[in-house]
C-alpha cells in the first residue's frame, strides 16, 4: 500500500487493535459462560469462586431432554442392571427418568415457525419489492413508508386485538397462526431490504431479456432473481433470526402445542429447583446456530444491518 496521510500509523493500529480485542473478550465472557455452564455439574455451576476449570459432564444436557423424579431410599439401594449411560448418570444423583422433556418439541416448533414464516415473508417480500422497484406505482413512497412504519408498533400494543382475532379464528397457540404473525412482522423488513437490492441491479439486463423474447415472469426469475440472490439470502437470515428470537408474541399467544423455545427455556427447572446447567444447555443449543451463522455469513449480514438502517 502506498503512503498516504489518511493511512493510520502502525502504532495507532496496535493500540486500537488491542482496545477492540479487549472489548470483544469482555463481550464474549457471558456467552462463554453459557456454553461452559452447560457442561458443568450442578455443584460446579454454583461454586464460589466461579469455576473456570472443571470436569465436563453432559448432565445438564441429559436433564434438559428428560423429565425426572426423585427416587426413594429403597429404590436407590435396589440394584439395577442394563441401564443406559444416561439413565446411570441420572441414577447416580438419586433421580430416575420418567419421560422425555418438552424441550425438543419446543425447539422443533421454533424451527417450523421460523422457517415457515421466513419462507412466506421472502416469497411475498421479493415479488412486492420487485414490483416497487420496477413498476410505476401510485403513492409508491407512501406505501413503502406505511410498510416500514408497521415495525414501529410495540408488539404488546397490537397483541390484544391479535389475541382476540386469533381466538375468534381458532389460531391461538397454533403453528399456522404464529407463522402468519411472524410473516407479517418480517414482511416489512423483507420488502424494504430486497427493494434496495433490486434497485441496484441495472434495468438494462431485463430489457435485453425482454427483447430476446422472455416474458416478464421469465425475465424476473431468470435475470433478476439470480442477481439479487445474495441480497435475498441475507434478508432471509435476518427474518429467520427475528422469528427465532421473538418472545413477546410467543409468550402471549402460545402456551402449549405451538410454543417456541424462547418462552420455554427460562421455565426449565430441575428436580431440586433452578437447574442452571440444564438452562445453559438449552440456551447453548438455541443460541449456537445463530452464532455460527453470524460468523460464517458475516460479510453479508454486517452489510445488511447497516444497509437496512441507513436506507431508512
Amino acid at each position, binding site marked *: 500500500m502506498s503512503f498516504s496521510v489518511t493511512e493510520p500509523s502502525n502504532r495507532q493500529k496496535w493500540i486500537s487493535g488491542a482496545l477492540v480485542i479487549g472489548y470483544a473478550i469482555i463481550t*464474549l465472557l457471558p456467552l462463554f459462560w453459557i456454553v461452559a455452564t452447560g457442561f458443568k455439574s450442578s455443584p460446579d455451576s454454583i461454586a464460589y469462586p466461579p469455576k473456570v476449570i472443571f470436569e465436563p459432564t453432559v448432565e445438564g444436557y441429559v436433564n434438559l431432554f428428560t423429565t425426572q423424579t426423585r427416587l426413594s431410599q429403597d429404590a436407590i439401594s435396589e440394584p439395577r442392571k442394563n441401564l443406559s449411560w444416561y439413565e446411570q448418570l441420572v441414577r447416580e444423583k438419586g433421580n430416575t427418568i420418567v419421560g422425555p422433556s418438552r424441550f425438543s418439541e419446543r425447539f422443533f416448533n421454533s424451527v417450523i415457525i421460523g422457517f415457515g414464516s421466513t419462507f412466506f415473508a421472502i416469497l411475498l417480500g421479493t415479488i412486492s419489492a420487485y414490483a416497487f422497484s420496477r413498476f410505476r406505482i401510485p403513492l409508491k413512497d407512501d406505501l413503502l413508508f406505511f410498510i416500514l412504519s408497521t415495525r414501529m408498533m410495540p408488539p404488546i400494543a397490537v397483541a390484544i386485538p391479535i389475541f382476540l382475532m386469533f381466538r375468534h379464528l381458532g389460531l391461538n397457540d397454533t403453528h399456522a397462526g404464529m407463522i402468519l404473525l411472524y410473516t407479517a412482522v418480517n414482511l416489512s423488513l423483507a420488502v424494504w431490504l430486497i427493494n434496495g437490492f433490486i434497485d441496484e441491479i441495472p434495468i438494462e439486463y431485463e430489457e435485453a431479456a425482454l427483447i430476446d423474447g422472455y416474458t416478464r415472469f421469465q425475465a424476473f426469475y431468470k435475470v433478476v432473481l439470480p442477481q439479487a440472490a445474495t441480497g435475498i439470502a441475507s434478508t432471509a437470515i435476518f427474518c429467520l*433470526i427475528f422469528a427465532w428470537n421473538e418472545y413477546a408474541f410467543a409468550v402471549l399467544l402460545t402456551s402449549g402445542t405451538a410454543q417456541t423455545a424462547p418462552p420455554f427455556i427460562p421455565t426449565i427447572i430441575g428436580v431440586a429447583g433452578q437447574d442452571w446447567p440444564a438452562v445453559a444447555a438449552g440456551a447453548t443449543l438455541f443460541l449456537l446456530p445463530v452464532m455460527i451463522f453470524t460468523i460464517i455469513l458475516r460479510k453479508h449480514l*454486517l452489510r445488511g444491518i447497516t444497509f437496512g438502517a441507513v436506507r431508512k
Partner: protein
Amino acid sequence: MSEETNTQSKQSPSGNRLSKVRGLSDRAIAWIFISPTILILLAINIFPLIWTVYLSFTNYRVNRPNKEVEFVGLRNYERILSDSDIWITMQATAHFLIWTIILQVVIGFTLAYLINKKFKGNDLWTTIIVLPMMLSPAVVGNFWTFLYQPQIGLFNYVVGFVSGADPSSFSMIGDVALAPWSIVIVDTWMWTPFVMLICLAGLRSIPDSIYEAAECDRASKWRQFWTITIPMVLPFLMLAVLFRGIENFKMFDLVVQLTGGGPGSITELTSINLKREAFEKWRTGYASAYAVILFVSIFGIASIYVKALNKVKSR
C-alpha cells in the same frame, strides 16, 4: 378485483420503457405482486390497530366475554393520564432510554473509530462484538439473572475482583438502587454493536480526499476530528439513536426475563406495565387506551426527530 381487469384493457399507461411485452400488463403484474403484502399487513397490523383504538373507548374485558360492552368515551384516557403509577413507569422507561442511548453512543462510536483504523483482523473481531445483538433477548436475559447472582454470579465475581468489594455484598437485580442499572448494563452489552456498525458505515462513507485536503491546509488531527469526522458521522449516529430509541421504548423481552419489572415496580417499563394491565388484570379497554397513548408518543417523537435529522443531513 374489477380494477385489475380495467387496468389490463387500458394497456399500461405507465410509460415505462419495458411496457410493451406479452402476457399480463405491467400494471396487473404490479398489483398481483403487491396486493398480498398489503393485505397481510392490513390484516395483522392495521386492522388490530384500529380495533385497539375502538376498544380503548370501551370497558371491555377479555375475561368476561358475556358482559355487555359499554362505550365509555374518553374515561380510560383520563384515568391513565391522571394515574401516578403510570408516571413512575414512565420515569423508569426514561431512565432506561437515556442511559442506554448515552452509553451505546459513546462506546459504539469509540469502537467504530478504533475499528476504522483498519488493524489486521478487524472484521473478525467486529463480528465477535456483534454476536450478542443477534441472540434471543429473552434467553440471554434469563441467563444474565444467573450472572447477576450475589456470590456465585460471574458478574458479581468480576466486579468484586476488580473493585475489591465482596461479591456477595450486592445484588444487581434484588437491590432497588441497582436494578435500574442491571437492565442498562445488559442492554448496552447487547446493542452497542448496532450503534457501532452504523457509525462504522458513517466513518467509511467519508472520502479520504477530505482529510487529505485538510492535511494540506495544516489542520491538526484534533481539528480534523471535530470539523470533519464528527459532522460527517452525525447523521448516521442520529439514525442509530432513533432506532435504539424506538426499540427501547418498546422494550419487553429482555427486561421481563431479567427483572420482571422488579423489585417492586422499579424496572417496570411501559411495555411490561401494559402487559400486566392487558394480560394479567385483563382490563382490555383500559390497556387498549394505554397502547394507543404509547403508540402515538412513539410515532410523534419519532417524526419530530426525523425532521431534525433531515435538517442535519441537508446541512
